[in-house]
């Protein structure tokens, strides 16, 4: 009886692991096969990886899309960490009743679905286009600006700041550091792991963002990688090998971030609830 229970436990976990991994396996294997073989259900690696890559780069400018996504995600991540950590630190270290009220109001923004912001934001950026075309519709800046500040990340930094040893600030003040100096010279280096976790969360979300770029970016040369993949996938006669190649390329950066920083990643997710 007891043994049967353990066997079924392993069987269930193996099944769950299989279901989780199989789509990855299929997408990688399909990137090495011709489209006809993929439709025939071929599940073995093929010899057409380079063919698929060549077909892909000949039909769409995937390097440009990857570059756009990188530019947008990296600038979003840097700005997000700077603004959110300053605020999280400010709310916790210079705590006051008034600031706590402001903080709870900021948290309300987490309840606002992006779909509700989409229309007014689009109209705002329509107006911005008239005065500052470089920040207006169909520019990478317009993707970054409304998305990099999130109440979630401010909350995350505030929670982590609760663990920060305040004595370090006192010591810094004795040494004559300014308030801003304390933040950059003492807080920032001490909180490296928090920054790492925040960077991963923000980078992943930005790299994968679809709805806002879909609304605000229009010309093909500004396309980000999710937009390009969505377009490839909506065709009527899909070239499976080519599309899977594109999907694999788009997943490599996030997979690398995940495997290199797995510990921070999980710590970051969980830290935010505690």
């Amino acid at each position, binding site marked *: 009886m007891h043994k049967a229970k353990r066997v079924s436990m392993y069987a269930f976990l193996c099944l769950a692991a299989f279901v*989780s991994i199989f789509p990855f396996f299929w997408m990688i294997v399909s990137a090495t096969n011709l489209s006809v073989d993929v439709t025939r*259900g071929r599940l073995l690696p093929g010899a057409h990886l380079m063919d698929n890559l060549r077909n892909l780069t000949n039909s769409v400018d995937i390097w440009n899309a990857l570059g756009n996504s990188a530019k947008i995600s990296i600038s979003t991540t840097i700005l997000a960490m700077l603004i959110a950590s300053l605020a999280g*630190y400010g709310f916790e270290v210079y705590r006051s009743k008034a600031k706590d009220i402001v903080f709870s109001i900021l948290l309300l923004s987490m309840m606002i679905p992006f779909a509700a912001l989409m*229309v007014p934001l689009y109209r705002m950026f329509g107006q911005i286009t008239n005065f500052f075309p470089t920040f207006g519709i169909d520019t990478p800046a317009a993707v970054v600006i409304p998305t990099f500040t999130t109440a979630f990340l401010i909350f995350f930094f505030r929670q982590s700041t609760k663990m920060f040893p305040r004595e370090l600030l006192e010591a810094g003040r004795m040494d004559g550091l300014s308030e801003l100096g304390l933040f950059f010279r003492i807080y920032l280096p001490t909180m490296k792991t928090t920054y790492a976790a925040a960077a991963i969360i923000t980078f992943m979300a930005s790299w994968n963002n679809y709805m806002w770029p879909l*609304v605000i970016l229009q010309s093909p040369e500004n396309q980000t990688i*999710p937009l390009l993949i969505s377009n490839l*996938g909506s065709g009527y006669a899909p070239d499976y090998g080519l599309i899977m190649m594109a999907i694999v390329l788009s997943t490599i950066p996030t997979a690398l971030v995940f495997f290199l920083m797995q510990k921070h990643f999980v710590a970051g997710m969980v830290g935010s609830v505690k």
Partner: protein
Amino acid sequence: MKTADSAAGSGSNTFRPSRSRRFKSGLVGWLFIAAAVLMIAAFYFYPMIQALILSFKTGTGMNLKFNGLANYERLFTDTMFLSAVSNTFIYLLFQVPIMIIFALFISVLLNDRKLKFKGFFRTAIFLPCITSLVAYSIVFKYLFAPDGLVNAFLLNIHLIGEPIQWLTHPFWAKVTIIIAITWRWTGYNMIFYLSGLQNIDQSIYEAARIDGASAVRQFFSITVPLLKPIILFTSITSTIGTLQLFDEVMNITRGGPGNATTTISQYIYNLSFEYSSDFGYAATVSYSIVIMIVVLSFIQFKVAGDRNA
């Protein structure tokens, strides 16, 4: 709990720093949070006020005029809106509980101290979270195609006699969306439960075992009550996520067949950018999701009880 004054900090042992010092440190604190507050005000709260005004207007593109409550009345007779709402609620009622139960069950299994290959199982089940919503949606669309691998497999093991129309049958298309979302997010929720389980003292379980409590009983009498705050957190985030569902339906079914899988977010997108740019009515529909999120989060808090929440 630390007080504001000790945080503002004077090096000495006085309980209150001098008045000017307090004023200065108060001002410095506001400067630290200023940028974030301005950004959130400009890109969340200001647009929501704009949306509220828009929701009372009608017209196409930029030519809008006020029409009172007409948009709100239109909601109740708009069959597209009503089917988007009912689809979204079907996803919510089936997908969120299924996923939470799976995630809880798997995390309880993974928390077993004698389990081997724990790291492998955990990483494998978490892996779907690294894909972008668009990328996995396209993969699922092909796997669930009429001649796709899922049908081929089910036909092969003789579970079905003919291919299931996963993408073009109103019922099965919803099932496909639910399967896809569950695949993507179960591992994500599992991580939260695993960390919660690690904080539960093992001796509670030992005591229960000595008292003769079965594994099922232990699960419902110990695990679930102790994880309640985390279950509440995950069910609220999942509810908010499901109410905003967009990327998957756009890329797997395009909302079809007919409107069988359309969600509210997708309907807002269609109203604004696919049909005739009816921004006013789109804003009205937007407010309906905001209200639903607020009401549902409130109900979940109440149902979970205020003790732990």
